[in-house]
């Protein structure tokens, strides 16, 4: 029997733990008829940005994390952080996994690990404490907390002042009024206890940004599994995991939105005209990502188009 230890850096109630990793652990046990058992560790072995290395160097057998937390390392995965990918995390995640298999994986950015899945959270929107945002003009000079990477560039191109702060500081800088707002998916606002602080949500159809996640297994551990077990593990990982993850985010987003409505937060959906203006403004961000992807031999424009097409086609 093989026992896989999963590095875990989120609280047990977080959707990634409760609705993605735990069900996956059970699915792995079932699929391998108990030959592979999965243990999700209680205490983190390192900070979020160290998770990829923790898996790659064998400190844990399996782990999950955010590609953007190690800037410069993952270039191709930035395609899943770009604006307007889609309203359903399920569709985006499944489409993203397929794109990864077909166009991104062969560049070998995930050296040292076996990629079990990639996925995305729900569409990112704009939340503010004071100013009501219903278009690009309201964003000018607004201090918005971002986590770095593409979303930072997006905030800047739109005329906002991005404040790069770790997610652990979101509560402090918003409650204290250091930032005027934040870019987040619905789920994260209540999760970071911000539903009592932000007052307005500006919904950007198909999302202003997204975040790319990975689930990975140490390569040597993967090689040590029998071909039969490898196949069984992948039968519940890959696309199956992406679908489960997307569904979990969608559910968490819906619950988050309900909580926010109950907390009296008002929502505005940006008009088509405003979305078009935003898209125009964000062309340079896309162009920069395409340029970086080209250096790794991937046609970024085609990849983005393929991703959007697949999201569109999902479920039809």
């Amino acid at each position, binding site marked *: 029997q093989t026992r896989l230890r999963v590095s875990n850096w989120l609280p047990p109630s977080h959707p990634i733990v409760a609705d993605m990793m735990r069900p996956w652990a059970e699915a792995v046990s079932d699929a391998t008829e108990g030959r592979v058992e999965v243990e999700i*560790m209680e205490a983190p072995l*390192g900070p979020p940005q160290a998770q990829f290395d923790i898996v790659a160097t*064998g*400190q844990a057998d399996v782990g999950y994390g955010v590609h953007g937390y190690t800037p410069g390392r993952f270039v191709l995965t930035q395609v899943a952080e770009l604006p307007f990918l889609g309203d359903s995390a399920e569709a985006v995640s499944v489409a993203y996994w397929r794109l990864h298999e077909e166009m991104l994986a062969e560049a070998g950015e995930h050296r040292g690990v076996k990629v079990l899945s990639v996925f995305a959270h729900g569409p990112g929107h704009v939340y503010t404490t004071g100013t009501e945002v219903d278009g690009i003009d309201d964003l000018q000079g607004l201090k918005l907390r971002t986590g770095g990477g593409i979303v930072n560039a997006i905030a800047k191109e739109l005329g906002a002042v991005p404040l790069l*702060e770790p997610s*652990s500081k979101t509560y402090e*800088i918003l409650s*204290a009024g250091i930032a005027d707002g934040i870019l987040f998916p619905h789920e994260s606002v209540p999760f970071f206890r911000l539903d009592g602080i932000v007052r307005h949500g500006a919904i950007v159809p198909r999302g202003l940004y997204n975040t790319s996640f990975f689930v990975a297994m140490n390569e040597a551990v993967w090689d040590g599994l029998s071909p039969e077990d490898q196949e069984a593990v992948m039968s519940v990982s890959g696309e199956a995991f992406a679908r489960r993850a997307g569904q979990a985010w969608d559910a968490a987003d819906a619950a988050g939105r309900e909580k926010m409505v109950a907390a009296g937060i008002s929502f505005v959906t940006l008009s088509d005209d405003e979305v078009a203006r935003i898209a125009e403004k964000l062309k340079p961000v896309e162009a920069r990502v395409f340029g970086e992807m080209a250096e790794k031999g991937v046609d970024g424009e085609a990849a983005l188009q393929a991703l959007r097409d697949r999201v569109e086609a999902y479920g039809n």
Partner: protein
Amino acid sequence: MEAWLIGILALLALLLCGLPIAVGMLLVGGIGVGLLLNPTAALAMLGQIAYQTGLNYELSVVPLFILMGNLIVQAGLADKLYAASQAWLGHRKGGLAMATVMACGGFSAVCGSSLATAATMAKVAMPPMRRYGYAPSLAAGTIAAGGTLGILIPPSVILVLYGVTTQQSIGELFLAGLVPGILGILLYLAAVRLTLFLQPEAGRAAERLPLADRLRALRGVGGVLVLFVVVIGGIYLGVFTATEAAGIGAFGAFVIALLRRALTLRSLYAVLIDTAATTAMMFFLLIGATMFTNFVNVAGLPRDLTAFIDGLDLGPVAVLAAILVIYVLLGTVLESLSMVLLTVPIFYPIVQGLGFDLVWFGILVVVVTEISLITPPIGLNVFVLNSVMKDVPMQAIFRGVVPFVLADLVRLAIILAFPALVLIIPRTMG
């Protein structure tokens, strides 16, 4: 025997042999992880921890708050604080000791470390107390105890580390320390009076100063007051984050030192080096503690501890009380920083699981840590005083702190009984 228990015993044995605490934690933690997982993983973990700890943005407050305190000393404001306290309290019975408590409290408002507060105040407050024939035990005991205020009254390095470990807002923790800190000052004043009640000859009164002189003495503390108001007020009003406040505070202290013409290139250099060395020492401890914590986590201590506590079937309050007793006991042998770094990661999930507020628990941890700083056999503040004033025997200092330890226990009980005292200010922040 459980692996984590063997590890803890091995660590205690190594530490008692006098190995640097950080080295001991790295050795036991590294070997433990190597045996439980595999040596490659242990080595990778070590490199990872050293690298990530060095780059931890939130910990940038540690050197910056230390720098702020060092610059304030360089600017001569510690002396001014004492002079002002003496002008107002010195003529009372035991007045110089009470002035020392006040000055320690004031200095704590611009210094994040307990040791630095005790060391600074020893140089400033000891000579006048000697001049007026204060009993060495009372004089040294007051300074050793007064120094502990340094980690409760914000800014506080210990609260920063607690906040980073438990992911609590450092700003809230700082503000939470205010009321208990003032309570600490008041109870320490009472402890001075208690000592004098028991030993009437321990401290005689100094001359009473005319009002004009007393008012003039107050001007000297203006700089400290302004800096405290800017730093803590800035956090409270949300002008900047607690992390940024450290940089602003250090810059403010720098400006004050410049204005007072207290900085030469040479003295600035000395202050900076001193700060860097202290910072490195603390970070090395932190790296060791993180490695050791990872080891006990891998060895399943959190799970076993939770199961043990569940099995005891005690109420939440009894569990909390048990944890605090463990702290007081550990505190007799462990140095404060190491103690917090070692124990908080283990206990906070339990405390959280019991439904207690982690900001409140943070203040409780600091108060018990303060006790550890002045209790034998390992009381770091006492050691510091002993090294600054070689002629006062260690036993005399430990005897002198007894009333202050009682004051600390009273404060602990008050905070336990009235959590609102801790939480009222942070909850109205922003």
